[in-house]
Structure formats: C-alpha cells, structure tokens
C-alpha cells in the first residue's frame, strides 16, 4: 500500500506524517506537492496539519482550489482512504468532502496539549484496531478546532455513525465533543488531534499508530486477499 502526503505551501506536519508512515508503520509513502495533477499511483491520501496558504481568508479555504484537491476529491470518490489531520481536516470541510465548519476555539487560545479521545466507532477502515469506547491519548495543536454543524447535519452524523472520535474533556467547544468524523461512505476521515504525533512511546504515546495500521489492514483485506 502506497501513501501520498500532500504538501501545501504552509504545511508543517508533513514530515511527521511521512515519518509515522515510513518508519513507524513501515509502508511506502511519498510527498506530493500541491500543484500535482495525478494521484493514480497512490492507495491512500494523507492531508497533514499546518497553515496551508497562510490560513488566509479561512483555514483551508484557499487549498480547496489547488490542483491537487481536484485529484483528492476524485480519489475519495473512488473509495480510497483519505485522512485529513488538523489543517487537513479544515481543508476537507472547506472542500465539502466532510460536512460542517471550524470556528475559533471557544477560549480564543491556541491549544497544544495531549487530549484523551474516545473511540466511538470501530467499524471504519481507520479504527478496526481499536476497541469500541477505548480511551486514547493523542495531542492536539490548533487555534481553530471548534467543530460546528447545524442540528440536521448532527442528526445525520449520528444516524450514519460518522462520529469516530470524541474528546473526553472538550478543549475547544466543538459540538457534541466531536474530534473526528467520516463522510457517509466512511472512506474520508477528518480529525483535529494528531495521530501522526502519537506513534512511538518516545513521543509520549503510540495510540495513534493503530489508526494507520487499521488503514493498511483494511486495504489488505480488500485488495490483497481478493486477488
């Protein structure tokens, strides 16, 4: 399985993501610049954190019109896994691959600390290696991670089991303590906490590694076992 880490001007967690996949997960991975026009050779897409295009206008807003995002949408529609972390989540929201929007943190402060997350859904391709209700420790680092959606959208998220991670102690004011959601099909995950920063005990936690292992396992079951 081969991953792409998409790099926008202003991405700053791309190296962490690359390291997590290459060294800790042990899968193939390549950096892909934001003006790329073809992602066919990749089996999974990773949108890293940072401040793409300086977060001008709104976080993730400018990125939605980059060449590579047209390809990311295409890849998502093919059913391949797409993971957006932090700014990557914001980009997925602005692009419309995921519902809702991000507001400034309720405290107006940039929050950078480990957070306890509850794994709400273990049937997604991103979470099969976790136990339902498992509490994991994954760091957050954001100023705009206060997830918002209207009541109708929230009902849909619940009805379709799209809420994958919630905060145990909501740090930013997110609706329903939401930390991560998938699209209806379940192959696009956006989350504010950084699983790529929790892949080794040296980093304080390796709870994020199982997320990447889940993706690879699901991919193997779907594509390798079938042949």
């Amino acid at each position, binding site marked *: 399985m081969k991953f792409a880490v998409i790099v926008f001007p202003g991405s700053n967690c791309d190296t962490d993501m690359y390291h997590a996949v290459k060294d800790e997960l042990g899968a193939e991975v390549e950096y892909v610049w934001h003006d790329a026009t073809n992602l066919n050779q990749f089996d999974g897409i990773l949108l890293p954190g940072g401040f793409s295009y300086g977060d001008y206008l709104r976080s993730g*807003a400018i990125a939605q019109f980059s060449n590579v995002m047209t390809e990311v949408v295409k890849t998502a529609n093919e059913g391949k896994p797409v993971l957006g972390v932090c700014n990557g989540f914001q980009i997925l929201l602005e692009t419309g691959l995921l519902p809702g929007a991000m507001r400034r943190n*309720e*405290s*107006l402060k940039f929050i950078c600390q480990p957070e306890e997350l509850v794994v709400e859904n273990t049937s997604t391709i991103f979470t099969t290696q976790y136990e339902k209700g498992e509490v994991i420790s994954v760091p957050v680092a954001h100023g705009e991670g206060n997830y918002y959606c*209207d009541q109708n959208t929230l009902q849909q998220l619940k009805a379709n089991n799209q809420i994958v991670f919630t905060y145990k102690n909501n740090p930013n*004011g997110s609706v329903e303590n939401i930390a991560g959601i998938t699209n209806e099909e379940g192959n696009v995950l956006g989350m504010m906490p950084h699983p790529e920063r929790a892949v080794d005990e040296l980093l304080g936690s390796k709870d994020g590694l199982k997320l990447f292992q889940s993706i690879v396992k699901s991919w193997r079951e779907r594509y390798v076992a079938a042949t």
Partner: protein
Amino acid sequence: MYKVKVYVTLRESVLDPQGKAVMSSLHKMGQSEVEDVRIGKYLELTLQKGDYDLDEKIVNMCSKLLSNPVIEDYRYEVEEVVAQ
C-alpha cells in the same frame, strides 16, 4: 469598472467568541450600552465590466470562496468607478 464591497459575518446562530471578548472589553471601558459585538471581514473587489451577470458572479464568488455558508453570512454593495 465595478468596485464591490463584501461584508462577511458569522451567522446569527453561531457564537462569536471574538465578538464576546471585545464586548466584555468595551464593558470594562465603561461602554455599558453595548449589547452585542459581531466581528467580520471586509473585502474590496475591483472587477472589469463585461458581458456577464454581476450579481450572479458576486454570489458565486461569495458562496464558494469568500464566505463559508455553514457558519457565515455575507452582503455586498456595488459601486461603478471610472478606471484611473
């Protein structure tokens, strides 16, 4: 040429923590009459005239990029200007 002035604000239903912080600061200043503060963005676009529907073009730009309809509202004003 047209000069288009676009105002983007958070929707009424969305809490504005920045506005709240500014309001409490105004109260500390003694401005107790202030009941609400909403913070938004102001954008000025200069457009060439042409064979297009101006309102349609502005609405398209506002709803797809300049504002996020999930949390923001926008309004705009148009002025005709003579190119310098």
